[in-house]
């Protein structure tokens, strides 16, 4: 199952669930946007909580399988993917 770890401030939209799961057929890869759309069907508002003007909120990094993806909502995920949303690291 693909797993999306729900940011703490959006867990009120998932009944407190810390993570959501979706089974994808073996070999199927879909975009993160598509995955979130499917999950949002059962958890209204979840997608909106991550979007800004239709795209991923600037300043949110997508982490897939502990590796940062630079593709945002275009990131391809599959059944084994584990997805997190975190602030990006910058510096001085």
């Amino acid at each position, binding site marked *: 199952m693909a797993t999306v770890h729900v940011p703490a401030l959006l867990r009120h939209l998932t009944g407190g669930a810390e993570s959501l799961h979706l089974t994808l057929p073996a070999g199927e890869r879909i975009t993160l946007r598509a995955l979130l759309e499917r999950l949002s069907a059962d958890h209204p508002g979840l997608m*909106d909580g991550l979007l800004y003007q239709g795209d991923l909120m600037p300043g949110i990094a997508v982490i897939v399988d*502990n590796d*940062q993806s630079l593709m945002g909502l275009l990131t391809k995920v599959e059944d084994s993917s584990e997805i997190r949303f975190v602030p990006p690291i910058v510096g001085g």
Partner: protein
Amino acid sequence: MEPFSHPNHGKYKVIGTRPIRHDGEDKVTGRALYGADVSFPDLLHGFVLRSPHAHARIRKLDTSKAEALPGVFAVTTAVDLPRLDDKIVSSGEGMENQKYLSDHILASDKALFIGHPIAAVAATDPWIAQEAVALIEVEYEVLDQVTDPDKAMADGAPLLHEKMTTTILGQKEAKPSNICNHTRFECGDLEAGFAEADLVFDREFRTRTVHQGYVEPHTATALARSDGQVTVWSSTQGPFRTREQVAAVLKRDLSKIRVIPMEIGGGFGGKIPVYLEPLAVLLSEKSGRPVKLVMSRADVFQASGPAPAAVSKLKLGFKSDGTITAGKVWMAYEAGAFPGTWGSTGALCVLAPYRVPHALVDVYDVLTNTPKVAAYRAPSSPQALFGVESIMDEAAQELGLDPIDLRLKNGAVEGDSRVDGQKWSRIGFLETLDAAKNSPHYKSPPPSGPNQARATSIGYWFNAGMQSSATVGINMDGTASVVTGSVDIGGSRASMAIMAAETLGLSAEEVRPVVGDTESIGHTDVTAGSRTTFATGYAVYMAATEALEKMRPRVAKLWDCPVEEVNFEEGAFRHAKGKHDPMTVREVAPKLPMTGGPVQGQSSVQPKQVGASFAVDIADIEVDPETGKVTILRYTVVQDVGTAIHPAYVEGQMIGGTVQGIGWALNEEYVRDEEGRMINTGFLDYRVPTALDAPDIETIMVEVPNPGHPYGVRGVGETTVVPPLSTLHNAIARATGVRIRNLPMSPPRVQAALAEQTARPVPASD
């Protein structure tokens, strides 16, 4: 612990040596060109009118008298700036709403901090410009102001942006607030975690606004041409980022703007935002002449981007064997006059060095009538770790544990999860702790005189990757040039030459490093985040490798053999079957014209396997109970540096960061009057450590190579600013029995704390 082996580590010929830096002679002879050195025969000088009020509505602005002054060629105000859309964009340093960008450059309807630019003038000399600014008439309606983040969060606090609400990821709250951002991380079961604890500490800490303290002020010179092309010379940490900001504020195509970075006299994160560049461009366009602006020291303090003040409420639980069971964090970071997201970085940092199975972290960015804050060396990490490391030391004392052993017990290793859920990659935290524990300093008897003590603490920084470009050109004699887009603020160009030389089999002296501008090299993100030697070095390695790859068929032509039989190994092209003598790059290069022409390698990268860096500090101190002065008797900093490309510059970064952290801990703060005005706007009263104050600092480099870089590079520049705050706090506590949880621990505060402890009267002090 198993030693980690990187495939190339220990076999380097150039990496790890200490060649003289290529820019050294110019820097020490004064020949190097900085922003203020830019000059033209028809140069005009700019001066900025700044708000004298921390919070005021601008009712009237009349520049006519200034414009009429002889010698004045241009005046600009916010009406010259295009209105920008209400749109949050990634700024390369977090996110920001671009509608605030123009208001930050020139106030439109409200002045939001003392020093906020209201107008700018260009004249034939700086004194006429200053005189003209004094002729600008402004009518202000002064409003209530607020400069402390926790006061700004309270109901009824004056609102800086009346329509702004708190942003939580993609959502906005309904109620207007000075809280511009809220970040939360949560894992495990907090209540259960604290229930497991045998010892719980619940403490509050406070740090003040501090400045990066770069000696060179901000400067910008702009020359606007009639065809719309603009050239900007700037003291900047990133010409491409400067170009983006100028283009965003003025709504121009990037191709219309060229930014040439000058040598930089310090930045530390403070020279990433633009302040003067758009003003210089506007004035140049209006006057038809080049215009230079240079900030005064007072302007730098009041109108650039200091590091935020912060309040933190921390609760940590421990078992009697020292194992951390739970952590609860509440923090508020000063954002300054415009929204920012540095608090989210603090949220990532605060518990990250340790395994904390049950945690709740809530961090807020709060608007205040102070200059918008900017990055300062490991931004947000010092404020976050100061309190955590204080509690770790208290716990060690209470539990009778060696403070390094306590950290070894709880320290994160590869595979451990952080509170945000991400797992650590290969890090050298435990190795660094071990090295500190086994250091000559730690093994020596601690100081035992009155009011003397030893303490230790840790710090770390994630480091960044981001985007970099490089070209490596092979000269006709086989020497090479390497051009990158990374401004050199700490010796990085020498490191680029070293990495190129190592790859090409040359010496560092045979490679000439050059810092390019926005028209001479591909896009490169800022020199910040301790990313330059990692990411730009990665690009240099790839470009040099590409150059070698292009030379292989040339050698094949010379040897009349298939290209598959030509390899580059151990500094030379070698025939796979040994049929030809090896040829170095210097031997092949003169043959390039006859074998196909010049060779250049190019690379643009966005490497992701960034290695975090940890540091452990040890300090022996003595406190003078009469004056409150803290004397550092001995100081050691131990850091995991990945691979030290140029050890002298790594040591320089370690020492420089430590000295800045010492200043932050013991002296530096923005002192403000009741109207929110900073009253110590010069280096005499804003007390950074000088060479006379700084102790000798022993550096110990622990090399745990980063597997994500061909030479094992791990960023090193930022981490060492973090530990001194808590190291010195812990040492003062161990020497005096008093924990001063309110920085800086300046002599008056130490005096007051000691007096409170002994309940004896002391002279009034601030």
